[in-house]
């Protein structure tokens, strides 16, 4: 059983489990599934700076902070007791492409060649970690949600704005991965 759990889980197991988060949060406490709001609650709690957008009763949303703390702990638990020692298997074309940028480390879920403390001081590492993170935080709040709030919760509730947002997430991702990222990775 434990050996089976240690293997990478297929999409048809993981996807439905993620989908079940929607009714679980609704039935446990009338909470709409969403994660990017946690970033806003952190701003509201720590650095509100008199900005109207951060003046609200964030304590009422404390459940969301417990939820993301749980996601962090889930990462810890999965790594400590369920980790698979084999390197991550990727499409051969991707491996060839990434080798051209010096990315050959497949031991972690993020490539250590790009995402590491020393790499932060390189142009490539700074863009990948700092600029990329900034775009994630800025973009999700501007869009009013992320993959969980729009793509999963919003579309589950048949909201057209969420379909539009999800299409834009995908469009931005395709543009970056295919047209811009090759230049960043070559830095």
């Amino acid at each position, binding site marked *: 059983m434990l050996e089976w759990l240690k293997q990478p*889980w*297929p*999409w048809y197991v993981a*996807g439905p489990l993620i*989908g079940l*988060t*929607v*009714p679980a949060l*609704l*039935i*446990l*406490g*009338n*909470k709409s599934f969403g*994660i*990017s709001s946690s970033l*806003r609650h952190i701003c509201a709690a720590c650095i509100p700076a008199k*900005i*109207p*957008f951060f003046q*609200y009763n964030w304590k*009422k*949303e404390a459940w969301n902070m417990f939820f*993301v703390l*749980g*996601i*962090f702990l889930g990462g810890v638990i*999965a790594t400590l007791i369920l980790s698979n020692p084999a390197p991550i298997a*990727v*499409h051969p074309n*991707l491996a060839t492409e*990434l080798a051209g940028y010096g990315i050959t480390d497949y031991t*972690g*879920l*993020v490539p250590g060649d*790009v*995402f*590491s*403390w020393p*790499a932060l001081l390189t142009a490539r590492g700074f*863009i990948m*970690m700092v600029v990329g*993170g*900034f*775009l*994630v*935080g*800025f*973009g999700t*709040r501007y*869009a*009013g949600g992320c993959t969980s709030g*729009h793509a999963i919760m919003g*579309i589950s509730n048949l*909201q057209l704005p969420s379909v539009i*947002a999800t299409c*834009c997430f*995908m469009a931005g*991702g*395709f543009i970056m991965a295919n047209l811009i990222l090759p230049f960043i990775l070559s830095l």
Partner: protein
Amino acid sequence: MSASNSFVEPVNKAGLPDTDFEVRSLDTMCVSDTKVVEPWYGHLKYLIIGVLFGIVFVKAEIISWFRIQEMFRLQSFHMYGVIGSAVAVGMLSVFLIKKFNIKTIHGEKIEFHDKKFNKGQIYGGLLFGLGWAITGACPGPLFAQIGTGATVIVVTLLAAIAGTWVYGKFRDKLPH
């Protein structure tokens, strides 16, 4: 914290219901609907859901930068399968909750809110998409990646918090 609280308090006293309304009208994500006031340990059930969710994230490699790169190069069906089946299960769940008027465990009616379209969903959506393909993570996976031991992702998370803050600071000047 105490210094910032002294600034915040007058605003809260003056207009707490209004600012809550603003939260709801501008982005209805993650806004708690319950009137039930729970003790702090009531939140532990969300922690447990988060833990299970985080384990799925790691074991299905959804938080892997490599899987995101494959998705945006159409080299793998995995992520499409995950998101597609998650949406299908979520949609069916919402349909059943509405159809059978399923209540929360506290006996409350479950609330759903319609989202209003604004141009932010396009501009913000595209910007987030760019960031998603660079970092290989949306906000949820950032927390899980840190948990797997990629400590440097703390920097990415702080940058994302900074991005959210800058949006809040300049949102009046941005097209919506």
